[in-house]
């Protein structure tokens, strides 16, 4: 928790896996048995009056709501959907661009946490939530080595499979002690050579800047969430100086090295417009596959993340 010291506890910069959710988080409230976060697709008839439909031949007679029949002279079957354990995969992006802001960024003190740290916090929190809901959770790590391999699927990487929320919290504490350094984070993950299997839900937590194909990874999940982690310094560039030049080396052959003067970035809101357009593109891309796009920074309120996730739960087309 040392890193979080002095940070706004309501923002993601200080997010802890065990962070309490708001009480109105729907699945939490409605799921008495805490068997999982997702409803099954199949409905089964039940006496628990959740929904109803007309009787069709073959339905169990005992489930006919006779009282209703007595009132309305219609055979109505009551239905219920069972909750189930979901396979949740959280992909944690730790490619070099996530290790930003670097110490040379002239920012008003204190320097916000690196995107990598925020991503770890969010990933472990999401994993913790789903573990608590009874889901099967695995956290996969995408780092530079894998990115350079150019292997067929990027998600074939190191993996952390917590057996219980306690496992996750202790892993988080160790990472925190290691100040969320690359080594400390990687230490918690074990190599996994298995082909990643389709999952019920895939989270990609990263800045989507690396060459890794987040869409490919997300495509393995029936439901997809891209938690787009950017630094608050990347979101708002008030700190940029006009006569300093800002560059990016480019991650691969098709991404060229670029360099712009600060005034070019500020000129007619160039940077902000392009960033918004990019985020718009990402959101649209995900919307096409029914996924959810959730942009966050270290300044994003935890409640906002929860609200976003709640949206995800409520989103139609799932389950």
């Amino acid at each position: 928790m040392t890193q979080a010291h002095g940070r706004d506890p309501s923002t993601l910069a200080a997010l802890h896996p065990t962070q309490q959710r708001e009480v109105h988080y729907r699945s939490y409230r409605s799921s008495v048995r805490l068997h999982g976060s997702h409803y099954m697709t199949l409905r089964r008839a039940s006496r628990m009056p959740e929904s109803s439909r007309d009787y069709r031949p073959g339905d169990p007679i005992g489930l006919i709501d006779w009282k209703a029949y007595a009132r309305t002279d219609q055979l109505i079957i009551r239905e219920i959907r069972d909750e189930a354990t979901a396979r949740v995969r959280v992909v944690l992006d730790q490619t070099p661009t996530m290790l930003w802001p670097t110490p040379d960024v002239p920012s008003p003190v204190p320097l916000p946490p690196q995107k990598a740290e925020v991503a770890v916090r969010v990933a472990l929190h999401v994993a913790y939530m789903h573990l608590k809901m009874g889901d099967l959770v695995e956290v996969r790590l995408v780092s530079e080595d894998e990115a350079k391999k150019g292997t067929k699927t990027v998600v074939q990487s190191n993996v952390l499979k917590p057996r219980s929320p306690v496992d996750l919290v202790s892993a988080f504490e160790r990472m925190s002690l290691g100040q969320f350094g690359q080594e400390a984070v990687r230490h918690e993950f074990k190599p996994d050579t298995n082909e990643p299997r389709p999952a019920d839900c895939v989270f990609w937590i990263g800045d989507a800047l690396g060459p890794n194909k987040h869409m490919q990874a997300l495509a393995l999940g029936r439901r997809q969430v891209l938690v787009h982690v950017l630094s608050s310094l990347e979101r708002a560039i008030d700190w940029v100086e006009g006569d300093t030049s800002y560059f990016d080396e480019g991650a691969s052959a098709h991404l060229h090295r670029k360099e712009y003067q600060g005034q070019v970035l500020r000129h007619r809101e160039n940077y902000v417009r392009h960033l918004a357009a990019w985020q718009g593109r990402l959101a649209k891309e995900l919307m096409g596959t029914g996924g959810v796009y959730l942009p966050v920074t270290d300044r994003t309120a935890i409640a906002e993340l929860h609200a976003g996730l709640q949206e995800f739960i409520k989103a139609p087309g799932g389950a």
Partner: protein
Amino acid sequence: MPAYKNLSKRPVAPRLNQPVEFGNLILDPSVAALGAGIAALFGLVVWWLVRKRQKRIWLPTIRIMELESRLLPRLLLRPPPFIPFLCFLIASLVLLGFSTRPRTQVFTPFEPNQTRIHVFVDLSASVAAHLTIDEYAQKVAALYTSLKESGRVTLSLSDAPDVLEPETPQALQQTIKEKGFHRAGLRLGSSLKMLIESLGEVDRLFIVSDRDQHTWNGFNWRYLLDDMDVLFYDVAGAGQEPQNLFVNDARFLSTPAAPTMDWDVEIARRGPGPESEGKLNVVYRNTVIATFPWKLGAEKQRLTVRATWPNSAVDELSKAATEDEPLIFKLEVDKGGDALALDDEYRTELLGLRQDVLLVSETAGERTLEDPSNQLTIALEVLGFRMQRHDFVRQPGPDPDNFPFWVLVGGMGSGVDRFCPKSIQVARTAAKAKGKQGAKDGRRHPLPRIWLAPHALDASYKELCQCYSRLLLTKAGEGSPEYCENIDVRSQWLGLLPSLGAKQIGGEIGDASGSLAWLGKDQASGLEVVAFTVPLAPSVQTGINHAQLPLLVKELLTWQSILEPRGGAAASTWPRLDDVAESLWRPPPGTSTMKEPPPPAELARMRVTNVPLGESLMVEVDEATLPPRWTSQMDWSDKQLPAKKDREDPLPWLKLAAILVIGATAFEGLWTIAARVLSLIGKRPEAAVLLVAAGLAGAFGSFAGDASAKVEFNVLSYAEGPMTFQTLAREVSHRTSIELEVKPSGFSQLAPEALQDPWLWAHDVSAITTASGQLKTELAIWLKRGGFLVIEQQLSDEKLKKLTENLARGEAAVWLPLPPDHEIMRSFYLLDALPSCGSEIWRGFQYDGRLAILTVPYGFLSTLKDRGQPAACANPPDQERSVRVFVNLIMVALATDYKKDQIHLPEILKRLR
């Protein structure tokens, strides 16, 4: 071996601030420093940019940006594009070459056969102040000798533009001694300008002269340096300021009849000096007439000496004198210095000499009153003439050369031969035969001026006519002409004179009867005859009284230049010649000047005229402004010879270099632009489309005509041919914002084109109606579609009704007089009534709630067209009213009753509340 042989190259001692040398080229340190400074500045700018660039911060999100980085191009160290870099390199090298200059001026060595040297020797008066002609000739000869070995030496003296090439120095010396100094002044500028044109290629020009300001003034010798070296051989000694006395001016004072000749002679001195004294001799025809002592006080600069001598002193001498003989005031200086002898003589014309006049006049008796020429004689004597009177002429009469002025008084009836000499006729014929030669020999008026006057008003004008024709018109031996036979009285004589070519003197223009005399002139010989029509005597009849006669005579003599105004001629006859070349030189062969050389007699006279004031004053010019000096002991070095001619002309090389720089820079620019355009097209193919589109737009834009928005209307069945409405269109455009078409399209029959525009004027209703009197179908359709028809014809109610039968929608066609509140009355101008024609009024046909057809009872359009006719009505409207009605009509045609819309009403009401 002359000293200047070794001028070609001399080693230059190296110094610390010596320019850097590359072979024969020097890179000037100041230029190099400037270049280095500019380069350093450039480097500083680059350094600043690089320094700025060095503060770089990694911002990964830039990865997704596609920004124009135009605000500051990225500074990348790349190898430059080859061709622009090559162009830049060439331009830089050439510019570096530009900044160098030759280390030594390398002269081509003197080749005796190739080098041309010209020596110009100043023989003007001021030089004479410094040395005698012998010494001068010696010096010039010495110079000539020393130059002789160096090339071809030519020589010219300032008195003439001739180019000499003397065989030996002795011959040259002799020539100069013979010519001596000339009295006219010298202007180096004009004389060398004339001379050099004829000299051809000259490498060196030596000017042998003194430092006289008069000589050097206005001579820009540096101008010559482009073609030759100019060297100055100064013959004046250094330091001393010689005294010089001269006769500055002489003014004639005597009146014509005075017995003495009085002159005021001004003796002047160059600058103040000690007391001087001497004698002033008056010389005429080498005889000293009078001598006057003078004394000029110390520090005084001028003195006036009154010279007086009796007329008789020169009378005898002047008889044999020619006209060119001057009166010379000669200064003898006994005490005080006088450097210049030439200007001690001052020549002027002998004034006050009595002119001879021959008067041929017969007297009727012994008494004065009986002499018709008594008063004339007195008048002429008063005017200073020496009178010789004859009663009659013994034929052939006196020699014309004996008397410059003849007065013949005749018409006494005793025959023309009695007063009219034949000698004039002979002389005139001879002069005519000589042709223009006589006029060119410098003598003025070789034939005398003749006055021919009647002795009285009732004289025999026939004789006068005969004498006139003998003097001016007929040849010797011819009889008296027939036209004189009928001349009896003055009026007939007056009538004839103009037809003989004479010009009227006195009287009113166009009224010969009041004329005093008539001037006849023989152009070939210059003979002038003034034929008086009234006697030259006081008379009540002619109105000439005793007081007027002398004045009249004097005026006429002055006008004829027989009596010259006092002092007027002196200046022009013996002037001070400032510039010998301008006045005396014949243009040398090969020069382009159109100047006519003076005639020989004139030339000879000019040579001995007065020394100009500038030469006498002997003011010296600043030595710094003079060309480099040559002295006989001179050490010829490149410093003293700023030669231009011997160097190779660098201009072609400089031009080539300039072309290279400009060409390389331009090519570099074009190449870079083309490369950028191509890369842009490669990156964004749509840019090519845009470029082509822009190019095409530019091309077509230049061909596109102006858009115009004019109100056009058509006219139908107007018999008077095409109408124009220049004035109307101007009025309309001044009053409103509407542009009216000046030339409406005219049609004789209803054609589809006539219905192209929504406004049609018809003069004759038959052109638009069918046989049954209804509107033609196409016109009816056009009206229904919004057309506006104006008919300029009176039509009865029945005809009107019939006309619009097929327009009225089942109801009776309604033609109404235009009410006072109709939109035509207020659409632009507020009209109280429309111009009517007799009892006929304007009627309108409303269709679809608008005015569709309008009948005008007269030719309204004809009154408005250019050069329009007024209407044939009893009460034709004035033009202004017609224009106003037309403007309102236009408004109705364009906007119908737009005022009824009252779109502003809510606003107005709102404001009123």
